[in-house]
Structures are given as C-alpha cells and as structure tokens.
C-alpha cells in the first residue's frame, strides 16, 4: 500500500471517502428516521485470494453493481442478514419479508448507500461515473470466481444502524487504469 499511495494521498482519499459516506448515511437516515454510525474508511490493496475471503461469511447479503466513466470499477454492498427485518420495518415494508420483498429491499438499500457514496466521491474529484442498477450476488454459488479483480484497490466504508443488528459495508473496487486516474486527481487536489 505504501508503494501505491503516499501519506498525503491516503489522507486525502480517506477524507473524500469520509465525506461521501456522510452523504450516504444522511440519505438513509432521513429515509428511515434513525441515526447511523460511521466508521473510519479503510483503504487497502488486496490480491485475488484476499478478495475472495470477503465472501466466506453467511452474515451478509451481497449486491454488486458496476460503474463506468472516467474511472471504472464495481461497488459491492454487504448488508447484514441479522438486521434485514428491522430495517425493512423502518422502510415500511410488510413484515415478515417474503423473498421477493427482501430482495427488493436489499437492492434499494444498496442503491441508496452505494449510489450516494460513489456520487459524493466522483463529485469531489470531478470524475464522471455512472452506476448501474445493483443485482444480488450469491456468494454460496461461488460466483466470486466471476470477479476479474486480480489485484485491486478497495475503499471500504461501514454503516451501523444505531440500536439494531443492521450494518452495511460498501466496497468500491477499482481497476489499475482507474487507480492511475484517481491518483492523478488526488495530486491535482493536493497541489491546488
């Protein structure tokens, strides 16, 4: 990691992620009238096997959506299985959730959180990105193999819904070419 980003670049990227997740949390908090706790963003480089390990859990549902534009990549959203009913209730879904409404809820949540996060991030860096609609991703079917990431920069933020078991993580994966674009933009920002 130290090879890839300087301390200054890392600081800047972390702060941009902070602001983006603040906007994402605010979007969700206003919708469900609850308080969301934010973590400090994590910025790591992982190889393919480390990446796959993310899916070795039955605690989360996964969604994925790709984005295109001046940077390309994929946004993965992890949504805690334990809190699904609670947040469904807060979002006025009929409980208990059936499979169809559960999927609808998860995709809606992913879109709100990942959308606001990526949007905040792109706007601050004057990047143009367009996010596709999310789809469910079934890690148990070993679809993880379908990810083309060999070595990738992960930007991870974590949301915790206060007083519940619900938490969510957004992982933004960037390809090498996009990492170069990102570093250039960070440098511009730092030199201003």
């Amino acid at each position, binding site marked *: 990691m130290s090879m890839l980003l300087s301390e200054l670049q890392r600081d800047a990227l972390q702060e941009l992620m902070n602001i983006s997740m*603040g906007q994402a949390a*605010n979007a969700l908090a206003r919708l469900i009238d609850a308080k969301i706790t934010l973590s400090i963003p994590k910025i790591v480089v992982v190889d393919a096997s480390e990446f796959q390990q993310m899916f070795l859990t039955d605690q989360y549902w996964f969604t994925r959506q790709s984005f295109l534009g001046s940077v390309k990549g994929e946004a993965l959203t992890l949504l805690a299985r334990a809190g699904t009913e609670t947040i469904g209730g807060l979002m006025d879904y009929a409980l208990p959730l059936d499979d169809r409404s559960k999927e609808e809820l998860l995709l809606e949540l992913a879109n709100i959180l990942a959308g606001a996060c990526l949007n905040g991030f792109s706007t601050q860096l004057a990047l143009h990105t367009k996010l596709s609609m999310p789809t469910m991703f079934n890690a148990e079917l070993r679809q993880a193999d379908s990810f083309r990431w060999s070595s990738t920069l992960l930007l991870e933020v974590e949301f915790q819904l206060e007083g519940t078991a619900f938490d969510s993580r957004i992982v933004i994966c960037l390809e090498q070419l996009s990492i170069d674009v990102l570093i250039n933009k960070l440098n511009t920002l730092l030199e*201003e």
Partner: protein
Amino acid sequence: MAIPVTIADDSLLSRKTVRKALPPEWDIELTEACNGKEALAAVAAGKAEVLFLDLTMPELDGFGVLRQLHEHHAKTVVIVISADIQPEARKLVESLGAFRFLHKPLQPDQLRQTLADLGLL
C-alpha cells in the same frame, strides 16, 4: 488586533480546505490541531477565540471537545465542519453549544457568510 483562530481536524486535506476558505482580509493568528486534545489545549492556551471543529477525530472527537467546552462555559465560538451531516449529529452539536454546523465539503462562500453572520468579519 489579530483574532486567535484554531482549525481542529485530523485530515491534512480538510485543514488545508478550511485554511484556503478563510477570507484573506480577516486578521487572524492561526493554529492547527490534529485531534480533540490538541484542540482543547489550543483553547486553554488562548489560541482559539474561534474554533473550526471536525467531529470525527482520534484521541478525543469533536463531540467530546464540545462537551468539555460546554461544561467549562468556555467563550470559544465553535463552528463545526462535519462530514457526518445527519440531522441527529446537528441536533447534538447544537445542544452542546456550537454556533454553526457546516457540511463538508466546505463551501468558501458559506464560510464567509457564517463569519459575517456571527459578526466576526
């Protein structure tokens, strides 16, 4: 006479953003703090008649700083500049006596307006 002003934020980029947004004609003596403890030390040393305060910081966060200032009836004018922009955060910050709650990314116009509103310019 120059007004002692402190910017408290753990992010270098954020401190720079605030620094650059300060009106050039504003006569101040600037101090920078990287965490809540340093922010309180700056207040104690008389270096923060005005304090620009981030909420998410190591050691002691912005809420902790506000609580301490509040308990000690400090005269510091606190302007919170936060990435956490949820209504709950704003409410808490206001209940702890902060004068203003500004959102990141900070807009220079908004900062100038805030300073003017507070009679600091």
